């Protein structure tokens, strides 16, 4: 027993020594591992997202020469949205010198990496997706669902529908169906919707769609049969355009169909065109080619022939979301440098501090060229989300148009749920939440 322990200790020491030596030989480069999927059923939506992330890094290098002199590097790794390939990519790239953070770009991969990130001390950024309870930074030290989660999305959708109906109390007796991707991605919003259903007295009908979501005939037959007042669409990739075509075939009014922000981009509606006219979806971010950051990308990257992907997709919804994600990553590094030394390469732990202490007010966003694209965001030890703003936009057959004001998720509903969820997580894992001193450091 003792001997075997000794042997294992020796083996571990030998292994970690070899890792340590490679870490010393690092250049002055901050490395961004880019997990992406350019193949498979989710590729239409994964590609612009990945292009946006890459182009922003290229733009920062070309325009500013990196962050305070630290050059940014990246490597893409194809996951195909599969969890095991995503884990392989993570393992492949996490050991590179100067790794800043991971954006897993898939909810399933996020779940798997949530267990690994604290061990490796690399933060995870899951903008608008991932684990909803991870907003509680006291329990989830390494997860950052910036700008919103499925719970905030579900909450805002119900707020908006209530407003359209003339007040949340008018939802009483109404029937709302949730057509969702049958995976953790699609199931995450259910608790919030159930809570809201209890509060306002509407009936919630669950209609799962098996991944990847090209087979929805039975689901829409059910919609036709039960005639819900509204349908919420919780899809991703090919599932969205399929759902819209089925809605058209079923004759379900498209203006009663509301998508989450992962179901509200150009690839989802382009093929359906006029058939999707009137379809609403959440817009987590602004978009369009006119904003300063997109112009900078066009000027510094695409005009020089360095761009990733087609030029006419620059500024589209998911492309811009990729740009925002990468901007937040870069700004986290910049924030970390303010504290741990400008012009240095930050470790994952230091970047984590930067992510936890982001303060992007309107002035800063304007300076970065993000005015009109996103609302201010400020994070803290206990709030890893920073903001919950979202709008609704509507497809007019050719382009998306904003059709509502900004909404914020209802803290009073979500806060107790997040607390309960993170408490359960900690209890299941036999862990304790971070103490206040951990926030000071």
């Amino acid at each position, binding site marked *: 027993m003792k001997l075997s322990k000794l042997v*294992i200790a020796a083996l571990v020491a030998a292994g970690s020594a070899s890792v340590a030596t490679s870490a010393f030989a690092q250049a002055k480069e901050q490395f961004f591992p880019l997990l992406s999927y350019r193949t498979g059923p989710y590729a239409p939506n994964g590609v612009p997202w990945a292009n946006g992330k890459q182009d922003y890094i290229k733009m920062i290098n070309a325009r500013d020469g990196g962050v305070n002199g630290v050059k940014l590097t990246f490597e893409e790794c194809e996951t195909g949205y599969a969890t095991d390939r995503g884990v392989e990519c993570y393992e492949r790239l996490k050991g590179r010198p100067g790794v800043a953070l991971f954006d897993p770009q898939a909810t399933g991969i996020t779940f798997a990496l949530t267990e690994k990130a604290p061990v490796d001390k690399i933060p995870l950024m899951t903008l608008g997706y991932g684990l909803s309870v991870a907003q509680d930074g006291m329990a989830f030290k390494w997860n950052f669902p910036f700008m919103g989660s499925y719970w905030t999305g579900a909450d805002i959708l119900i707020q908006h529908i209530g407003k359209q109906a003339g007040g949340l109390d008018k939802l009483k007796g109404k029937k709302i169906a949730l057509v969702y991707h049958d995976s953790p991605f699609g199931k995450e919003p259910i608790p919030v919707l159930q809570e809201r259903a209890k509060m306002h007295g509407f009936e919630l009908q669950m209609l799962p769609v098996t991944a990847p979501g090209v087979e929805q005939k039975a689901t829409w037959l059910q919609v036709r049969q039960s005639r819900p007042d509204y349908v919420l669409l919780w899809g991703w990739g090919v599932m969205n355009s399929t759902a819209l075509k089925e809605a058209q075939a079923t004759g379900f009014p498209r203006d009663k169909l509301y998508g989450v922000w992962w179901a509200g981009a150009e690839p989802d509606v382009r093929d359906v065109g006029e058939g999707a006219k009137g379809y609403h979806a959440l817009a987590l971010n602004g978009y369009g080619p006119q904003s300063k950051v997109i112009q900078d990308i066009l000027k510094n990257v695409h005009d020089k022939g360095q761009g990733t992907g087609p030029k006419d997709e620059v500024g589209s919804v998911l492309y811009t979301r990729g740009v925002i994600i990468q901007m937040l990553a870069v700004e986290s590094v910049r924030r970390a440098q303010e504290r741990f030394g400008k012009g240095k390469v930050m470790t994952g732990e230091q970047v984590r501090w930067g992510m936890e202490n982001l303060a992007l007010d309107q002035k800063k966003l304007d300076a970065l060229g993000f005015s009109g694209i996103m609302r201010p965001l400020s994070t803290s030890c206990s709030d890893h989300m920073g903001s919950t703003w979202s709008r609704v936009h509507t497809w007019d057959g050719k382009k998306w148009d904003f059709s509502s004001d900004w909404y914020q998720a209802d803290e009073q509903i979500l806060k107790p749920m997040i607390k309960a969820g993170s408490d359960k997580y900690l209890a299941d894992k036999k862990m304790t939440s971070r103490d206040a001193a951990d926030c000071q450091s």
Partner: protein
Amino acid sequence: MLYRENGQFKTTYRADQQIFPIAQDRIAIALLLAVAFIAVPMLASDYFFRAILIPLVIMSMAALGVNILVGYCGQISLGSGAFMAVGAYGAYNVFVRVPGLPLIPAIVLGGLCAMFFGILFGLPSLRVKGLYLAVATLAAQFFSDWMFLRIKWFTNNSDSGSVSVNGLQVFGMPIESAQSKYLFCLALLVVVALLAKNLVRGAVGREWMAIRDMDVAAAVIGIRPMYAKLSAFAVSSFIVGMAGALWAFVHLGAWEPAAFSVEVSFRLLFMVIIGGLGSIMGGFFGAAFIVVLPIVLNQFLPALMGLFGISISTAGVSHAELMIFGALIVWFLIVEPHGLAKLWSTAKQKLRLWPFPH
């Protein structure tokens, strides 16, 4: 010259019945085990462990289990992914519901759950054979997909259906580092492989093979088809279930039902067919082919293209990887339909006669 058995006389039944009757084989296996247990943990990098070796070891175990059912007993199964899932969720449920349960009993209990599930879905094998059975076992796959997505009890009332484990330990030693995970899985694999090897060369294994080769004849000479088929299902799904528990607990850490989708069933069947039906060695070869080759191709292609000054996009690599992998499978099955294990034994036969072939 080196691989000759001249002068190795077997004077006892024990000596004649060894797993490796030739001394050179015994030395080679001992060396291989030494490399796997001592040299590899000292040399391999963290990435190599977590991304290649651990999945390889676990999938080898699963392929071994499938091989018992498909290769030795001839019962084609497309439900292997389901057996893995039952093993994983079974182990998870005992792990979270019984406080302080160590890892090994949890994994074995997960295997037992899979065993009962396997026997249940093996019952149709008493009536149907071949492709019909393959479709019947596919039902196990769909059933488990439905069960773990819909019945909340199995996922400990998790909202999203995704579950996770932590704090794994064996005899007080934490299974956290890549080395310890690898060694733990490898040790289990060695035990399982030894048990399986002994099973298939004993009376039970001969019954399975008799059923596979001609079930009516087997029944005539006194083999009970029900016992033989169901025992094959039981042993196979027990091993596959343990592999599923390891895949979930040790490799993924957190998983959702999609981790054990029908695709996993197919991959396991491919492993067995490419590795070699009815051969313990084949499971290892097949797992290596299916698990490691895509990853190697994925990383090797950009480097290869780089030599010629061509840069290839991520999507391009991914497409090329699928095409080359598919082409290799087809080429391979044409050249050697009996699998990699057959190549291996042909090589051994040739070596025995070398340098004087006849």
